[in-house]
């Protein structure tokens, strides 16, 4: 065991001034040398990169050209200045490294209590490098940090790990998928939450890191408590006025599954590997049906009053199990032609236990199903076959464990992979929302709905509604939303609350916590810097215009029109024109590569 505060202080210049919001200390752990140290960054660095995704990106940058499994490639768990304070939804953190699945920057926001515990234990984040010879865990208890053997946990599912580490505070861990290097592997946090996308579980596996546990007893210093309380009230009031969050059909009542019926009603529910966009059995497997059948309870991240998670009471006194999120509900029904809710629950539990991203797994399975049909003709996939295929995904990066793109390419049917940059698309069909189409393509981590989250205005009508069937105006809207969400992931807060509140209110919270007088536009500028930095890192690794594209299907096949809505194929020319506009607005050249002038203007190292 080592006391990190007694260790040599690595890194960047501390100024000696006191910080509020941030602890000013980042833990560094080298699993090769077993050296544990403390990094201190300058105030300016904190103010420039904020925390979470921003600060993690700053620390990742020097190593971004390394292979994802190179021992020197860092894995960074980062909190933000709001974490551990009373700012609403501030219990989230960010996990960042280079994505095993896509080769892009790989960051994933995670919930639970891990970020709060980390902050309370006196750390803004943890940077893990090296590669252990045996399977290990990192255990943090305030300033005490130790690397312990996790060999007894080898091969175990996450559920068993959480049970074994029940008294260790908050826990992030991988299951067999991560250990075996599956590119769909995720990192599970506090049993019910996941850093889901990009295959980041494989990154922990490559370092032989089974888990990170944290328990902290400190308090986070805040510059102005009264101002923070006022900012909190303003934010909470807005969430209460939000039908999507707190309304009788909203996330607080039904979980993210609340959008299930709406997606089908808007004819944008990805069905049969995105071959159609309406699932005639949707009404049988909607959020209401889950509620009737399983009576889920409310649950959520630390520091959140929305509590959008839903958990099912444990059977026979067992642990509560997470109910499927919207994307899992949708991809394991409509996308693969299943109407058995019990099976969806079983799949959800299995994937969480194996430590696999449910979105990636669902879309990869749908791709497999379509290819299988092409090769062998129509046949029905039963529950045991599905479960077996999913089990197979945890065995390693081969076969389905490499994700849909690798699988489809190996079968010389690359069009069957519904992915962008190799990351599978989530449960919003882009033919029903053109901002979403553009946002999938420009996302720096590949097929992700959350980077710009156009569903907010295209479907949920917040902050105002936009016409979902036009690209007009969308280039700038997507760019500004990416900037916004980049800073949200840096503060860190939850993107869901931005259906109701805005940076206007969060800037007040940030100013109150840090004592740095900051406006919404200041934060947006930081977000622009952080997102552009992603583009710079991806650019260095060769990503460009050909990667900012959608699967062919969306340009050539119509969706399921009906209910007064026509779902046409996306006009490719209009899509490319919108992408061109996006490039100009974002400060990229016509090939999608970052422009030097923009980097200089934003203070991003070239």
């Amino acid at each position: 065991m080592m006391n990190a505060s007694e260790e040599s202080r690595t890194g960047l210049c501390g100024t000696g001034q006191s910080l509020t919001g941030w602890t000013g200390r980042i833990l560094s752990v080298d699993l090769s040398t077993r050296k544990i140290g403390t990094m201190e960054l300058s105030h300016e660095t904190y103010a420039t990169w904020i925390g979470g995704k921003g600060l993690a990106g700053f620390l990742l940058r020097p190593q971004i050209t390394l292979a994802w499994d190179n021992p020197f490639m860092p894995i960074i768990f980062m909190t933000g200045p709001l974490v551990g304070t009373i700012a609403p939804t501030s219990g989230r953190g960010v996990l960042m490294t280079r994505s095993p699945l896509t080769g892009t920057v790989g960051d994933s926001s995670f919930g639970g209590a891990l970020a709060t515990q980390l902050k309370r234990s006196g750390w803004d984040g943890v940077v893990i490098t090296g590669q252990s010879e045996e399977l290990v865990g990192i255990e943090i208890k305030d300033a005490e940090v130790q690397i312990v053997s996790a060999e007894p946990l080898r091969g175990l599912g996450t559920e068993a790990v959480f049970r074994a580490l029940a008294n260790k505070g908050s826990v992030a861990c991988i299951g067999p998928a991560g250990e075996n290097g599956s590119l769909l592997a995720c990192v599970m946090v506090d049993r019910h939450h996941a850093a889901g996308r990009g295959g980041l579980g494989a990154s922990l596996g490559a370092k032989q890191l089974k888990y990170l546990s944290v328990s902290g007893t400190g308090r986070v210093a805040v510059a102005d408590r009264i101002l923070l309380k006022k900012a909190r009230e303003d934010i909470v009031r807005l969430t209460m006025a939000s039908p999507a969050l707190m309304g009788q059909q909203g996330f607080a009542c039904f979980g993210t599954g609340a959008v299930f019926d709406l997606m089908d009603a808007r004819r944008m529910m990805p069905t049969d590997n995105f071959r159609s966009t309406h699932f005639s059995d949707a009404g049988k497997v909607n959020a209401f049906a889950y509620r009737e059948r399983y009576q889920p309870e409310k649950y959520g991240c630390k520091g959140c009053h929305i509590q959008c998670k839903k958990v099912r009471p444990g059977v026979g006194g067992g642990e509560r199990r997470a109910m499927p999120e919207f994307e899992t509900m949708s991809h394991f029904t409509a996308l693969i032609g299943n109407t058995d809710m019990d099976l969806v629950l079983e799949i959800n539990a299995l994937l969480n236990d194996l430590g696999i991203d449910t979105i990636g797994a669902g879309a990869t399975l749908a791709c497999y199903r379509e290819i299988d049909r092409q090769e062998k003709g129509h046949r029905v996939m039963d529950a045991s076959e599905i479960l077996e295929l999913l089990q197979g995904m945890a065995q390693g990066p081969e076969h389905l464990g490499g994700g849909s793109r690798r699988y489809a390419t190996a079968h010389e049917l690359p069009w069957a992979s519904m992915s962008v940059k190799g990351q599978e698309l989530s449960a919003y069909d882009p033919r029903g929302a053109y901002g979403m189409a553009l946002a999938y393509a420009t996302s720096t981590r590949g097929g992700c709905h959350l980077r710009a989250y156009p569903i907010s205005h295209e479907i949920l009508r917040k902050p105002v509604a936009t016409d979902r069937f036009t690209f007009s105006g969308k280039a700038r809207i997507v760019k500004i939303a990416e900037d916004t969400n980049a800073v949200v992931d840096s503060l860190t807060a939850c993107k869901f609350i931005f259906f109701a509140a805005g940076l206007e209110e969060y800037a007040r919270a940030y100013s109150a916590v840090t004592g740095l007088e900051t406006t919404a536009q200041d934060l947006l500028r930081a977000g622009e810097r952080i997102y552009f930095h992603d583009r710079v890192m991806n650019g260095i690794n060769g990503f460009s215009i050909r990667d900012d594209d959608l699967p062919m299907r969306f340009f050539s096949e119509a969706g399921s029109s009906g209910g007064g809505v026509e779902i046409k194929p996306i006009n490719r020319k209009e899509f490319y024109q919108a992408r061109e506009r996006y490039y100009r607005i974002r400060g990229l050249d016509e090939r999608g590569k970052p422009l030097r002038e923009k980097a200089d203007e934003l203070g991003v190292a070239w």
Partner: protein
Amino acid sequence: MEFLVDKYADKLRRAGLCENPVVGGLDDVLVWNRGADPAWTARLTPVFGRMNISGLVFGCPAEPFATILEFLAAEYPDGFAPKDTETRTFLHELPVIHEFTPKAVADVLGRRKSVIIATPSVMGIAAHGSVTPEQGFVTFSSVCFSSFVLFFSEYLRHVRAGTVSPARRTAFEAAVAHLEPMVEQGPELACGPFADREAALQAMVEAGRATVEYRLVDSYFGNISCLLNQELLISQTGSSLDELPGLIDFCPLDGSSTACLTASSELTAHSQVYAKAGGRAILHGHPRFTVILSMDCAERGQNVTCEIGKLDLCHVKCPAKRYLSGEDGGVPIVPGEVGTGPNGLANTLPAAMTGRGAAAVWGHGLFTLGNTDFNQPFQALLDIENGCRRRYFATVDAAEGRR
């Protein structure tokens, strides 16, 4: 984009808020509404360069708002924060600046949704949006509404206290001279009961449009619903009552679908009103004098006996039985925030609607209920607002006479 900038410029004109609005929208190329004054657009174009925004609205407000804002900007040179719901929930405060430069405008819009620009030559409002010009339009309209409510509320307070300054009196008289004449009779709306969805939808569209035309709500706020068989039909969140076609959700009463996740934030309040008070049609607007009187309580502020009033928590905790008419048995006033939270009006409104089929929410607006169609709730909305307006001026006259 051209369509949107023209649309919102036109809406500002039609709402009587501004005669020569300037509305800008930016994707990669900046476009202004047709007829936008080039002198203004030249001055405002650099604001886009200083901010990450998609839309900007600017205009010199029409009367009586110009007079009101001129007075308030002098009275509160740094800005003000009215207590009505639109300000408390969405605007938070109304900052004022006294120079009209792109930097000064962008500095304030960098932290708030709107800025009031008061210089010797310009009296204007600027507002922005990160998504579309509609945000700027909504904010512009809210600034006018909130300023109106604050101005007339303060006059009432000062006249009672005998502290009306000459400048305030002059502004008041000018503003009153610009008030639109009272309209007593509402339009004839479709008669119920509605045979089917189509008939109900048409009736809602018609009543919504009339509510905006009669200036009983600023377009964008307000909501409307009706009950038809086992469904509640309700306007969507963020829809404008004068543009309802295609923006009405059908919510099954048994809750078996969440497809109306986009329904108005007051869905729960509406369904509870039907459950508790009966009826088949609800209309909700923000008529100005109703809002003013809903906040008019002698017990508010310092030096008062009411503990809640002292704490400035009337809007959520007012414990008193209060009525718009000031008399027992009139239209009740209840506290409550927007939505369903622990302090939400969904908890207070339904019971209050049982008696008179109408209730005001503190600092927010008025809900009215009809048994078969929108004729009854529309006329009630109009009558109650007219009653509040008469009572307001009667109170002022009485206080001035006494003084």
